């Protein structure tokens, strides 16, 4: 069970987020490729999920009553691998095999190779539909388990996201909590320039969701939002997490360039120093 579940130990979670960032940077530098910016922007959210909110048993990944986490923005695989490893799903030493031939840590998450990965993702726009199906299945089984689904902001340009948004509202999936990592940047540039998504809160409201708009790098705000989401009945909740791309490493922050490239060894050294 989560060490921080029973109480809101924000400092514990902040320290954990730092440890997650360290693992992300180390594995990306070792791999020499991968998505740095979007892994770091969503680190606080994923840390709060795995070390505060999620009902799970890392020693029993198939536990029927577990809460589910679906990483719809599959390119943030390093983030998922870091929280899974630090939760105890597998040994932390495996992280250095990221993207290497024969590694269970594929460039994008593969459920067939790694315990704790609920479903393979990587092609954007598909996770919310899958999460809906899980939420429906859990309700059919009378379980009070919840489903968390993390999306990117560029990702919500995919039409399927809005198909799924309608489905969740139509079937009143109040065991569903979506989170959008609004870091404002996608590969080709600022989201507002590539294809704007604002007013993003009104879009989700119009689709029948309960909307919680927060600073997605503020651990206290994340924890409160996750708690609040649980008490919403009759409709799904989306947490709009306004984040900073590359958060935690000053020279990556807010830089489009670091969406899809890994730190060099020199950048890693500097980054780790900053996080100390």
């Amino acid at each position, binding site marked *: 069970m989560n060490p921080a579940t029973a109480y809101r130990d924000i400092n514990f979670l902040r320290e954990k987020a730092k440890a997650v960032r360290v693992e992300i940077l180390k594995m990306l530098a070792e791999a020499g490729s991968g998505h740095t910016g979007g892994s770091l922007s969503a680190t606080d959210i994923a840390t709060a999920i795995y070390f505060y909110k999620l009902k799970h048993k890392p020693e029993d990944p198939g536990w029927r009553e577990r809460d589910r986490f679906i990483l719809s923005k599959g390119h943030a695989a390093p983030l998922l691998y870091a929280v899974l490893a630090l939760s105890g799903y597998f040994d932390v030493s495996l992280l250095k095999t990221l993207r290497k031939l024969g590694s269970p840590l594929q460039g994008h998450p593969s459920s067939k190779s790694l315990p704790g990965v609920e479903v393979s993702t990587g092609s954007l726009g598909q996770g919310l539909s899958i999460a809906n199906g899980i939420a429906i299945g859990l309700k*059919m*089984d009378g379980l009070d388990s919840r489903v968390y689904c993390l999306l990117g902001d560029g990702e919500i340009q995919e039409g399927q996201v809005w198909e799924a948004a309608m489905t969740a509202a*139509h079937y009143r999936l109040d065991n569903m909590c979506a989170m959008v990592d609004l870091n404002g940047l996608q590969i080709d540039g600022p989201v507002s320039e590539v294809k704007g998504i604002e007013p993003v809160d009104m879009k989700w409201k119009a689709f029948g969701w309960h909307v919680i708009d927060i600073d997605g790098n503020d651990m206290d705000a994340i924890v409160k939002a996750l708690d609040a989401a649980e008490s919403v009945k009759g409709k799904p909740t989306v947490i709009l997490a306004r984040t900073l791309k590359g958060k935690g490493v000053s020279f990556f922050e807010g830089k489009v360039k670091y969406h899809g490239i890994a730190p060099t060894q020199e950048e890693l050294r500097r980054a780790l120093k900053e996080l100390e």
Partner: protein
Amino acid sequence: MGEMIQNTEHRTQSTEKKAIATRDAYGEALLELGEKRKDVVVLDADLSGSTKTGKFAAAFPERFYNIGVSEQDMVGTASGLSLTGKLPFASTFAIFETGRAWEQIRQTVCYSNLNVKLVATHSGISVGEDGASHQAIEDIALMRVLPNMTVVVPADGAETKQVIEAIADYYGPVYVRLGRAKVPNVMPEDYKFAIARAHIFNTGKDANIIATGIMVSVSLEAAEILRSEGIDVGVINMSTIKPLDSGALLKAAQSSRLIVTAEEHSIIGGLGGAVCEFLAENHPMPVKRIGIRDTFGCSGTPDELMKLYGLTSDDIVKTIIQCQ
């Protein structure tokens, strides 16, 4: 005399009873399966009246989810249900199921090897009047290329029912291709369907026809005509197109001078493609493909379209005679 009449009546009655569309058989099979297995969940994309999942919906409303006109979302939702141990059947028209949602099927269903059953109706040109937009002639090719996918095309209503039962007991992604039009019952009474097992009606020295779906009945007709003209022709129902029953295919290939494939699908990438790929590597020999020749369908009655696109028994007869 009295006995003869009785027999005739019996035959007429049973033929009428059996000449149903494979989609109708699916509707009935789902209903039976739903009663037997509580883990069966059915999804549709606003076509439950046409795909016949509506019967299941009426009987088990708590296990039916209409996802509306959003096939990609339907496939994703079905995937999620399978992750909670449910046995989802997701249905819509073949072109929307395999075309619109292809990447969802690839990325989520097949890559994660999920236990999702994709059962699509309205395949091929026998859709008729709705025209090319609704006539899937590429779906077998689209599904066959995917790792982990099994592709099944039943020949008649009775086989369809067996297919639905069999795939429910099999773990993994399956695509089942069904039709809108009525098809005569062609499989023998004692026939037992198994995934990846073809049914050999008979083999012939002059040609063997490897057929699938509604073309099995057409091929049987063609073989009968040819045999009456002294040409020895066999017919094989290759209802599982992936994995192909290579043993049956090899037997058919070794016992005749010509292989003819027959499908209500493009000659590219479907049954014809699969058979040619196998034979080219394992038993090179002459092959003729009966199917849609790299063109779209159009509006018309199913019978008119089968003639227009060269999918009648006469077309098969002519093709085989030309090769003798």
